[in-house]
């Protein structure tokens, strides 16, 4: 009787320890992953809060009777380096393809964004929206000359 109780207790004890170990291992891995994700989220929020850029100048020059080319200079007056490939340019609400003279827009530096073959005649007014990779948007209006 005495040995049976000891054997049962030992078996259950070992099972409990193994189970506890398994749960702790999974919990540890998960908590580490969640912690890393939370850090990433905080970093993104900080980056967004520190992101600011200005549309410095807009040059819209007509190329044909009904189309024009757009050149926009933007200036990074925030403290986050922005990847220009992640920018989005919307003209009159429509997403347009663009080129930029730099790949990264560093703080206190300017970049030139060019969009070609936009529909519009001389004297027509248009709305421009530039959105950075982290979602900060700037708006401007311009007239084609």
């Amino acid at each position, binding site marked *: 009787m005495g*040995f049976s109780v000891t054997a*049962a207790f030992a078996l259950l004890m070992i099972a409990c320890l193994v189970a506890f170990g398994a749960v702790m291992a999974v919990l540890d891995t998960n908590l580490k992953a*969640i912690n890393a994700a939370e850090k990433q989220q905080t970093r993104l929020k900080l980056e967004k809060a520190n992101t600011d850029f200005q549309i410095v100048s807009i040059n819209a020059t007509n190329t044909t009777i009904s189309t024009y080319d757009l050149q926009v200079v933007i200036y990074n007056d925030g403290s986050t380096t922005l990847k220009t490939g992640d920018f989005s340019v*919307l003209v009159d609400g429509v997403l347009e393809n663009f080129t930029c003279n730099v790949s990264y827009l560093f703080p206190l530096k300017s970049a030139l964004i060019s969009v070609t073959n936009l529909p519009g005649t001389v004297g027509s007014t248009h709305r421009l*929206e530039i959105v950075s990779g982290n979602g900060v948007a700037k708006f401007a209006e311009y007239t084609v000359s």
Partner: protein
Amino acid sequence: MGFGECAAHIILFIAVVIVASSLSVMMATTVQKISMGIEQQGNRVQKLLTTDFEIINDPANIPTKTIGTSTAYVFYVKNTGTDSFPLTNHTITVMIDGSLISPSNVTTTPALLKPGQTGEVDVITTLSAGDHTIRIVLYNGVSASLEFTV
């Protein structure tokens, strides 16, 4: 201690070991299920934390396009998180002014939106002139909304 008593002890010992082993196996199965649950929940929380997006349209200038014979409003969605997410009419929910838009009236490109990328959500619906609100909800519950005018 006779043979009978010894046999009784052995039988009792074997019975106790069997019961204890059964309990251990049951415990192992339950713990395995709990571990899997914790892992799944952890992955879900991790995805929630790393998924983020914005509707980047010019609120005063929502473009339209013709799909078949219907007119669709075009909304641009930008992935501002650090994880890619699926962008299909079955993985997102679109609501305009609180009304659910049927997935059959929603078309999207591309199917997977990578971080920094901008996708397109075309919504076939009829909107009266004035102000409206669109809300897009992703598969994991992360949502973004935009007030716009047509």
